[in-house]
């Protein structure tokens, strides 16, 4: 019986004693930190592979473990990385019916050799019935000019046809070629094995009819033959990368052009199914003449393609020949890359540990390791930061001032690469009147929204490109807050105030739904404020909030919404095609509001083919201006991204032309972690080379 008594009274006592002891122990833990940087992450990567992953948790790890041929500098411009040098050029090919006419054309060109410098034309050769011109600068303009000049004899037009067959594209094309030798097919390209696109000499009608008949004869179901373009010539830009030598993978093997070729293969192969493939769809061929040279030929001028080479390279010597299930089991949870930190350990749902890569080509980092801890709750993240369990925290707007005023912390502020907006579904008649959209823009007090929702940590957005990019148009004047003007515009558009305070036109009340997703405080606040602001000018808005998956699948991707609050994250890319071109307004595409402006369409298409920096700035600026004036979205703001670390917990010592420079952690356009490779903890400073230039 004493046993029973002991159990009843003793066990709880023991538990309490253990609890107290454990608590006391926890309070006594030293704050001696290891030479590591710990980051908190809300999500956990699903797989670590830069060509396959799409979640931000994975890209955080990948940015430390992998490297690409190019990278973005601290000012967000493209610069060489694993490729120590790159060079653009272009081959324009004219097709002639005979060798003589080709040579004749060349003769004409030789007489114009004085203009070659102006055209950046380096060479012109005749091969069989083709005249190939080699330009230093890609682009269509020069080629067009030359085409006019040399077309004394008629050239063969080139027709580009896209044929969707669903499967066995390669086999079908080969059969077609054999069956129809009369068509001179000069280029072929395959989208997995489902589609082929060919460039053939001649007019469009004969070949497209032949193809249609061929497919019907072969009983190919659901096929589609589409003539894409009829061109005078083929302009194929070429990028040549010269790779650094002596760069080692984290397992010791040397990095060569073979890895680049393999990465390209993986990006475009059906069995891998990379979601990044569309960025590489315009590549006609990728060749590796030597282990340190990569030559990429594009199918047509497409200037945004250069930025696709910031894509990280994956190791051929590990992954080649293995099926993707092998990748899942052996690589995706223990990757090998070329970056400053290499993979060490992944304790699922707890942390991923990356250790210093001593053979990193740009110099081994000072830190022993970077640890990424999984903390699913945003508040947990902050608590972990305040108890020094993680070393930095992304500050919420309302807490920024408190941290800035607190001397124990260093705060870094920079505009985020996104802009928030309210979208009007332009398929609704109410929103099709420009005056209505302008009225709404005047009615919503964006500066006040920034002041109160963001606590001042943001700037008003003036269009689709955030201001820190080199091609952004910073001359656009934001639409001012003017509710009277808003009312006037609505009156003008025929929407008059009704008896219940809501405007009416032709019997229709000005009332609509504004939806957004759950889990985001700021979006909820925006929705509530917009609702309130619009109510004051006589517009009734009902706010509905949905869980993210439902929001996306039921409303956004089907474009079945009236208006919505959302944000676009924008990489340093000026190609506005996917979101603003009128062809992208169908279900599952990204022109969510259904914007259709032929002038903008043309500008977008032209911009994609423009390589000249000044012209790019001009055209991008114009696109931004026109879209802003059209107000398909109510452009709200670009928030600041604020980070905080404990003061002097880290410093930077990096190499400069003047020697080792020691500075506190500083902000760059590319973020405050740009120099992560050179971060160190001051208590471990003795193990490093002395600083030659010091900034306190």
């Amino acid at each position, binding site marked *: 019986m004493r046993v029973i008594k002991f159990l009843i009274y003793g066990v709880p006592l023991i538990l309490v004693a253990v609890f107290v002891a*454990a608590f006391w*122990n926890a309070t006594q833990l*030293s704050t001696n930190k290891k030479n590591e940087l710990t980051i908190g992450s809300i999500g956990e990567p699903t797989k670590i592979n830069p060509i396959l992953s799409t979640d931000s948790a994975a890209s955080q790890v990948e940015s430390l473990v992998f490297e690409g041929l190019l990278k973005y500098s601290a000012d967000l411009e493209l610069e060489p990385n694993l490729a120590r040098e790159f060079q653009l050029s272009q081959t324009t090919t004219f097709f002639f019916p005979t060798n003589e006419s080709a040579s004749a054309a060349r003769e004409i060109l030789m007489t114009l050799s004085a203009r070659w410098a102006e055209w950046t034309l380096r060479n012109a050769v005749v091969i069989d019935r083709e005249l190939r011109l080699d330009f230093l600068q890609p682009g269509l303009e020069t080629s067009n000019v030359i085409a006019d000049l040399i077309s004394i004899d008629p050239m063969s037009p080139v027709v580009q046809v896209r044929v969707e067959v669903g499967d066995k594209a390669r086999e079908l094309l080969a059969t077609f070629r054999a069956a129809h030798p009369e068509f001179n097919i000069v280029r072929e390209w395959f989208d997995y094995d489902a589609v082929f696109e060919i460039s053939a000499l001649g007019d469009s009608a004969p070949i497209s009819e032949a193809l249609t008949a061929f497919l019907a004869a072969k009983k190919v179901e659901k096929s589609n033959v589409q003539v894409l373009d009829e061109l005078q010539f083929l302009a194929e830009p070429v990028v040549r990368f010269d790779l650094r030598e002596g760069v080692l993978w984290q397992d010791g093997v040397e990095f060569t052009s073979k890895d680049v070729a393999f990465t390209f293969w993986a990006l475009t192969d059906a069995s891998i199914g990379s979601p990044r493939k*569309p960025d590489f769809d315009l590549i006609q061929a990728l060749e590796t003449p030597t282990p340190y040279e990569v030559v990429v030929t594009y199918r047509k001028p497409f200037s945004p393609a250069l930025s696709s080479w910031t894509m990280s390279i994956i190791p051929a010597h590990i992954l080649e020949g293995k099926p993707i299930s092998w990748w*899942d089991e052996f690589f995706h949870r223990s990757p090998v890359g070329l970056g400053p930190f290499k993979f060490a350990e992944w304790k699922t749902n707890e942390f991923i540990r990356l250790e210093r890569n001593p053979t990193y080509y740009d110099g081994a980092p000072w830190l022993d390791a970077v640890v990424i801890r999984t*903390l699913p*709750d945003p508040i*947990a993240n902050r608590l972990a930061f305040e*108890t020094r369990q993680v070393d930095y925290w992304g500050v919420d707007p309302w807490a920024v001032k408190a941290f800035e005023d607190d001397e124990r912390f260093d705060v870094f502020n920079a505009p985020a690469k996104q802009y928030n907006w309210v979208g009007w579904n332009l398929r609704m008649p109410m929103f099709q009147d420009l005056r209505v959209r302008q009225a709404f823009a005047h009615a919503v007090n964006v500066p006040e929204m920034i002041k109160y929702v963001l606590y001042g940590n943001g700037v008003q957005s003036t269009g689709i490109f955030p201001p820190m990019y080199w091609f952004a148009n910073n001359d656009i004047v934001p639409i001012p807050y003017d509710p009277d003007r808003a009312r006037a515009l609505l009156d003008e558009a025929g929407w008059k105030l009704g008896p219940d305070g809501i405007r009416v036109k032709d019997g229709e009340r000005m009332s609509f739904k504004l939806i957004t997703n759950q889990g985001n405080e700021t979006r909820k606040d925006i929705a509530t404020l917009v609702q309130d602001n619009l109510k004051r000018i006589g517009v009734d808005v009902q706010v509905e909030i949905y869980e993210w998956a439902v929001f996306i699948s039921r409303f956004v991707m089907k474009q079945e919404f009236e208006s919505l609050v959302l944000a676009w994250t924008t990489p340093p890319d000026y190609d506005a095609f996917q979101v603003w071109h009128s062809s992208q307004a169908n279900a599952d595409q*990204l022109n969510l509001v259904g914007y259709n402006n032929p002038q903008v369409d043309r500008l977008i298409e032209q911009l994609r083919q423009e390589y000249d920096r000044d012209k790019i700035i001009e055209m991008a600026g114009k696109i931004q201006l026109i879209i802003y004036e059209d107000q398909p979205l109510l452009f709200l703001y670009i928030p600041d991204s604020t980070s905080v670390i404990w003061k002097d917990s880290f410093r930077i010592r990096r190499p400069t032309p003047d020697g080792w420079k020691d500075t506190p952690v500083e902000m760059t356009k590319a973020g405050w972690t740009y120099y992560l490779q050179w971060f160190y903890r001051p208590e471990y400073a003795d193990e490093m080379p002395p600083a030659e230039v010091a900034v306190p």
Partner: protein
Amino acid sequence: MIHFIIRRLLITLVLVFFISLVSFFIITLTPGSPYPWGELDPKISQTVKDNYRKQFHLDEPIWMQYYLNMKGLFSGDLRSIKDGRPVLERIGERLPATLALNVCAIVISLSFGLLIGVYSARNAGRWPDVTLSVISFAMLALPGFWISYLVIIGITDWFGTPMLGTSTYGTIFPNAASQMLDYAWHLALPASLLALGGIAAQSRYIRASMIETLGEDYIRTARAKGLDEETVSYKHALRNSIRPLITGIGGLLPALIGGSIIIESIFAYPGIGRLGYQAVLERDYSTLVALNFITAALVLLGNLLADILYAAVDPRVRLE
């Protein structure tokens, strides 16, 4: 007895399949699809999306999907839609942490529940009992997320002690004992908060049961025989009031897997409750099928176990 067990097991099997089928229907009927990428990412091509749907049978009719998922589950081959890893592995790696947390919580609620229940019963009607009653109900009335946040903020503001996750990171431990205590601390706090409701419930059951027993004839006889109050309470009355404890143990099985979503999120504790919650949000059907099935099986087996233990302990109970 054997007959009974076999019959119940068969019924359990049928029920488990029925439950998992209906749950599966409900989940797949919910709007939303399980894409592991941002649907608003412009770079994902349609072919990739189609391949993905094919790989996970998302375009098949619902009953076919259920069959394929179950087949995968029993062959061990079932893979998570979210990251392609075997589902059983994903569940398995969370098991130790979940087990630790829940076993701890159950131990705490049983031991404190027993203590409070017995003490209240022995002092029934007097002010210690009344106070403890109020306290028990207070523990039941506390919203879990509220008290957790208040505790966490309090500790952070006043002590600055780390308490998230399963261990303190990045610190150099002076010795092994300190590290063990660190694990204990990270376990103790969420387990205690998880156990609050359990303590209250257990103590009420035990108290009621023991009071009822203490009023029985044979107890009066024992007292009349001159046995002291302690012996009467502990030796005789308690033995017969153990029933609630048994129910508690029967409830062990499903609780071992259930976990609490809210506590796990707040404490960043890598448990199964959170896995299930995220799977629902991500529409990870394969993981959900596995979790549902396992949970249902464990609940029903737990009930069966409780009934068997009842019969074993109390000869008056007749199992049909």
